[in-house]
C-alpha cells in the first residue's frame, strides 16, 4: 500500500490518464490493471496478518473469560456502555463515509472524495477523543494495571488481567486508528491535488480496506469488552 502511495507521490500529476503509458504505472508492471490487483491483494494479505495479530489477544481473552467469568462481569461493568455504543456508531458511520469516498473516487468526483475523506477523519477524531476520556477515567479510578492498580473485592487479580487486555486491545486499536488518520490525511491531500481518476484510484481503495478493517476490530471489541455480563448473570 505504502508502495503505491509513495510511487504515486514520486510520479508527476496525472491530468491526461492513459491506460498504456499512465504516469502512475510502475516500470515492473505490465498494466495498471496488474498493478491495481497486486496492490489490493497486498493489502488484503496485510489485513490477514492483522487478524492474526489481534488473534493472539483474542485467545488470551477467551481463556481468561472462561476461567474468570465473575471477574470479567465485574470489571466489564466499570466501562461506560453509553460511550462504547456511541463510539461503535461513530466508527460504523466513518466506514460509511469511507465507502462513499471510494465510490466518489471510482466515479471521478474529486471534490466529493476529499469531502468524504475529511468526514471520515472527523469521525475518527471523535472516536479517539471519546476514547481519551474513557482512558482518563480509568486512570483516575486506578484501573490501569500495574503497581497502582486498585479494584474492590476478591476479583482484583483476574480483574487486573481483564484491564490488561482492555488496554492492550483498545490501545492497539487506537494506534491503528491514529495510523489510519495519518493515511487518510495523505489520501485527502492527494485527492485535493486531483491525483485520482476512475482509471487509477488504488490508494483510496486500499486505504479504505484498512479503515474498514479497523472498524471490524472494534465491532468485535465492543461486545467483548463492554457487554460481558450486563444482564447480571454472574454477579
Amino acid at each position, binding site marked *: 500500500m505504502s508502495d503505491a502511495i509513495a510511487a504515486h507521490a514520486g510520479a508527476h500529476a496525472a491530468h491526461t490518464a492513459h491506460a498504456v503509458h499512465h504516469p502512475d504505472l510502475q516500470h515492473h508492471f505490465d498494466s495498471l490493471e496488474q498493478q491495481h490487483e497486486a496492490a489490493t491483494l497486498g493489502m488484503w494479505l*496485510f489485513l490477514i496478518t492483522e487478524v492474526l495479530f489481534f488473534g493472539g*489477544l483474542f485467545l488470551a481473552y477467551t481463556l481468561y473469560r472462561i476461567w474468570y467469568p465473575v471477574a470479567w462481569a465485574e470489571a466489564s461493568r466499570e466501562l461506560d456502555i453509553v460511550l462504547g455504543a456511541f463510539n461503535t456508531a461513530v466508527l460504523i458511520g466513518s466506514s460509511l463515509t469511507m465507502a462513499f469516498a471510494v465510490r466518489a473516487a471510482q466515479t471521478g468526483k474529486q471534490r466529493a472524495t476529499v469531502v468524504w475523506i475529511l468526514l471520515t477523519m472527523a469521525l475518527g477524531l471523535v472516536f479517539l477523543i471519546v476514547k481519551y476520556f474513557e482512558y482518563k477515567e480509568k486512570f483516575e479510578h486506578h484501573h490501569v494495571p500495574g503497581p497502582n492498580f486498585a479494584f474492590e473485592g476478591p476479583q482484583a487479580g483476574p480483574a487486573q488481567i481483564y484491564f*490488561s487486555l482492555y488496554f492492550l486491545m483498545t490501545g492497539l486499536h487506537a494506534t491503528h486508528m491514529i495510523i489510519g488518520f495519518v493515511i487518510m490525511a495523505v489520501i485527502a491531500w492527494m485527492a485535493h491535488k486531483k491525483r485520482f481518476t476512475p482509471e487509477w484510484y488504488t490508494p483510496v481503495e486500499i486505504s479504505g480496506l484498512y479503515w474498514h478493517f479497523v472498524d471490524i476490530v472494534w465491532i468485535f471489541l465492543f461486545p467483548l469488552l463492554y457487554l460481558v455480563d450486563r444482564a447480571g448473570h454472574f454477579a
Partner: protein
Amino acid sequence: MTVPAPRETYLNHEHTVASWLLTKDHKRIGIMYLVVVTMAFFLGGLFASMIRLELATPAGDLVSADTYNKMFTMHGVAMVFFVLIPAVPAILGNFVLPLMLGAKDVAFPKLNLLSWYVFVIGFLFTIYAMVTGGVDTGWTFYTPYSSRASNTNVMMTGLGVFITGFSSILTGLNFMVTIHRMRAPGLTWFRLPLFVWSLYSTALVMVLGTPVIAITVLALAIERFLHFGIFDPVIGGDPVLFQHMFWFYSHPAVYIMILPPMGAISEVIATFSRKSIFGYSFVAFSSLAIAVFGFLVWAHHLFVAGISVYSALVFSFLTYAVAIPSAVKTFNWAATMYRGAIWLKAPMIWAIAFLGLFLVGGLTGLFTAALGVDVHIHDTYFVVAHFHFIMVGGAIMGYFAGLHYWWPKITGKMYSDIWAKVAAVIVFVGFNLTFGPQFLLGYLGMPRRYHVYPPEFQVLNVLSSAGASILAVGYILVAIYLVASIFYGEEAGDNPWHATGLEWTTQSPPLPHNFEVQPVVTEEAYEYSKREIKVV
C-alpha cells in the same frame, strides 16, 4: 581488435553507496541481506564456539554462569531470527524469485527495501541489547522468568524480535503477491520451479504466523515494562499461555527455516540429475501441506509443560501427520536421482550432505513426537541435537547448496569446485561429530542450558566440542573461497550448470531489469530430456 565494452549488469550500472542503500532492485536487496545475515551468522557462531568451549569441561571454568546463559540466549536469538528465518527467503528468494518468474522485480520493490531496513533496525536493537549487558532468558523468553525474574535486556531484545517480525511479514506478503501476479506468460502454477512453491508456502507461514509472535512479544514487553499482567501467575494468569502463543509462531517458524532450503534442494537435485523432479506435484503440494499442518502441532513443545493429557494426544497425533509430507519429499529426491545423469559438482555434494543430515533430523523428530519418550528427552540434549540437525544440517546446508548453485548467477564468477567439495565434506563430518554425541547425551539425561554438568557426561561433550571446531573450519573455508571467487574467480557464464529455469536464460550477473525481452514459458519445469541445452 577492440576490447568489448563490459556488459551492463545490476552490479555495475551504478556504483555509489546511495545506489545500494536506496536501491529497489530485488537483486541488490538480496545481496544486502546476504551481508547482514552473514554478519549475524558469524556472531551467532562466535557465541556457539564459546558455549562449546565452556562445555569441554564439566566445571564452569571458562565463563560465569550468567555469561554462559547470555551466550546461549544470544546464540539462539541471532541464529533463529537473524540467520535461519531470513537466510534462504530473503537472500536467495529475493534474488532468484523474480528471475524464476520472468518478472522485472517483486510486486512491491519499495516495500522490499523497507523490509530490509526494518530487518536491520531490528538487528541493531538486538545488537544494542547484546552489547549493553545481553539477555539471559533463552531465545524462547518463557514467562514468568522473562517478565519478572530476569534483570537483563529482555525489553530491547524483545523489541528487536518484534521489529524484525515485520520484515518477515512484509517479505512474505511481497512474495505471495509476486507469485500470484507477476508470473511470465505461460508460466502456470504447475510449471513453476519447486523453489517457488516452497517460497509461496513459506510466505504463507510468514504472513499467518509472524503476527502472533509479534503480539506475544509485545504483550511480554508491556507486562515487563508497565507491569500489566497477562501471563502473571500471581494475579491468576497462566504462564503456559505464553508458551502456546509463542509456539503458535515458533513452531511454524521451523518451516519458514526449512521449506525454502527444501525448495533449493529440489532445484539442485533436478539440475544435477538432469531429470524432472520425481513426483513434481507431490513435492509441490507437500510444501503447502507442511505449511498448513505446521500450524496444527505447536503444543508438542509443551508435553511436559502442564498441558492436558488429551491435548497432548491430539498434538502428538498431528505431529506425526506433518512428518509424512517431509518424508515424501525425501523419498522423491532420492527417486529423482534414479537413472539420472548425475553430475557431481559442488552444489550437488552440498545437497547430498543436506539429504544425509536432514534425514537424521527428520527421523529423530519421531522420538520427540512420541509422548512416552518425549517426557524423558524433553529439554535435554536430545532435543538440542534434533533441532540442530534440522536447522543447521537441514536449513543451513540447504542454504549453502542453494548459494553454491546460484553464486555464479549472483556474482558472475565461479568459485573453486574442489574447495567447495572439501568444505562440504568437512562441514558434514564436523556437524555429525558435533551433534551426533548430543543424541546420546540427551537420552542419558543431560538437560539443556546447563553451564556445569556431571562429570560422567564429559567424554561425549568433548567429542561434541571437537566436532564444533571442525565445523567452524568448514564454515570459514566457505567464506574464504566464496569471497576469493569474487576477485579471482573465472567468469562463470550465463548457464554454467546447463540448467533449465528462467533465471539461467538471462546473463550472469543479470541485467538491472533482469531480461532483455519478456520471457514466455512453453513447457514444464526441469524438462531436461526434451530440451536442447544451450552450451556455453
